[in-house]
């Protein structure tokens, strides 16, 4: 006689069908992939923006062409001298009048000079210091009273708060996705148990251990979860690629991998979804079946 395959002893192929459960798990994985993509993109963009914003330094010098406190040249020149020797200040650039006009155009119109207002000179720079800018501000005040020094720390803090709340939302969505996936597997398993209760009672009576029966359910749930999640995750790839393409101007090309135009962190994290779905499927099926079996002697 030919060697025989041990096969589907409990009839789980019919009771835990390969249609509804994988589709629902796939849908959950699709959502999880998008959420994960959103959370990682948010974190990545926030890191980039926070770095740029926190280090931005803006210095306004009123009456820039008046003599400085020491009467040793203009106030603007005195400020520039201090900035040029301060190692924490880099790329100090005096904005041209045209740029200043462009910045204030929404409030004062395109020809601010015509209004006869005494506009300050504006210097932009990068702040590399680890502490605050109060010492620099005091030095500049000494040579050019009324000079204002501002960094983007406040905006960086706001971006951080926004990022944290978005990540919390993503975590909540992932939690709900896990909860729904767990419920779907539990309901499917209970439905399978209801269909197969006579078979299971017989197998139990023939000496099957609880672990034998629960293990078979778990193995089936693992495969269905893995397959469904793999499908859902693969379906999410083109959507994520499209979203990454939309976000590319904000992220910068160096943050994207060559494949699918997605951040490497996301590409490394996505395979965890099918693995997690398989784990959820296996553990949920095991616990559900073992709980049900407690009713048998």
């Amino acid at each position, binding site marked *: 006689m030919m*060697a025989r395959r041990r096969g589907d002893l409990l009839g789980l192929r019919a009771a835990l069908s390969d249609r509804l459960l994988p589709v629902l798990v796939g849908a959950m994985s699709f959502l999880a992939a998008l959420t994960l993509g959103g959370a990682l993109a948010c974190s990545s963009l926030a890191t980039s923006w926070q770095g740029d914003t926190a280090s931005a330094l803006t210095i306004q010098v009123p009456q820039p062409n008046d003599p400085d406190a020491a009467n040793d040249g203009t106030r603007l020149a005195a400020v520039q001298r201090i900035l040029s020797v301060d190692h924490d200040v880099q790329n100090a650039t005096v904005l041209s009048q045209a740029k200043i006009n462009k910045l204030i155009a929404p409030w004062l119109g395109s020809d601010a000079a015509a209004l006869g207002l005494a506009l300050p000179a504006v210097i932009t720079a990068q702040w590399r210091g680890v502490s605050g800018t109060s010492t620099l501000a005091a030095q500049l005040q000494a040579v050019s009273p009324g000079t204002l020094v501002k960094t983007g720390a406040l905006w960086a803090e706001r971006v951080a708060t926004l990022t944290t709340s978005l990540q919390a939302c993503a975590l909540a969505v992932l939690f709900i996705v896990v909860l729904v996936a767990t419920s779907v597997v539990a309901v499917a398993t209970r439905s399978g148990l209801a269909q197969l209760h006579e078979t299971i009672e017989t197998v139990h009576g023939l000496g099957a251990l609880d672990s034998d029966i629960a293990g078979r359910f778990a193995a089936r749930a693992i495969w269905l979860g893995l397959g469904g999640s793999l499908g859902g995750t693969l379906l999410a790839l083109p959507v994520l690629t499209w979203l990454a393409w939309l976000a590319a101007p904000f992220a910068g090309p160096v943050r994207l991998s060559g494949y699918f135009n997605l951040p490497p962190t996301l590409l490394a994290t996505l395979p965890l979804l099918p693995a997690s779905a398989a784990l959820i499927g296996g553990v949920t099926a095991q616990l559900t079946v073992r709980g049900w079996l407690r009713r048998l002697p």
Partner: protein
Amino acid sequence: MVRFDDVWLRYRHGGRAPAAEALRGISFEIEEGGFRWLTGPSGAGKTSLLKLIYLAEHPARGRIEILGTRAARVTRREAALLRRRIGVVYQDFRLLPQLDAYDNVALPMRLARRSEAQVEADVSEILRWVGLAHRLHARPDELSGGEQQRIAIARAVVARPKLLVADEPTGNLDDEQAKRLMLLIMALNKLGTTVIVATHNTALVEHYPFPRLGLEHGRLVYDG
């Protein structure tokens, strides 16, 4: 060996309905390698008594010892391992509909993790014994009542159990098949398997004069 000591069994129906007493103060002992007929009218408690023996029910009271093990003291795992040493022929066969005859018979051996080579040898042999070697691939719904019963019997004995419990095993068999089955059961009994057979078939009991347990209204009225 099987020992019952003042065993009571009650079925609870839920709600406020009083529990029905299926067995009342049953005491008996079957020595290792013994054979007992279990007789009595319908509703006397034969199937209930067998369920206690193959650990499908817990007694309300009393002490049960199966194959040297106190039934009340076993863990779930130990109970499962004990069940593997008990062959059961159910009154309603309980064949698994999705498996063919071969896989149904092979089930106890596979649960006991016997090698496939041993499964194949033993299943083929027992299917020849019950005259169904030609129906290996038939599913239960393709078999007649008598054939299903023979498959159920083959499944119960294939793993050479230490205790064989059969509930009306000849109910759907003709005289020739019933005789063949009894030869098989007696052969197992001679090899040391303890056997308990519940039956209505008085002709069978008279033809094979083994000791008998008689039940009526849940009480043991005859032991000898």
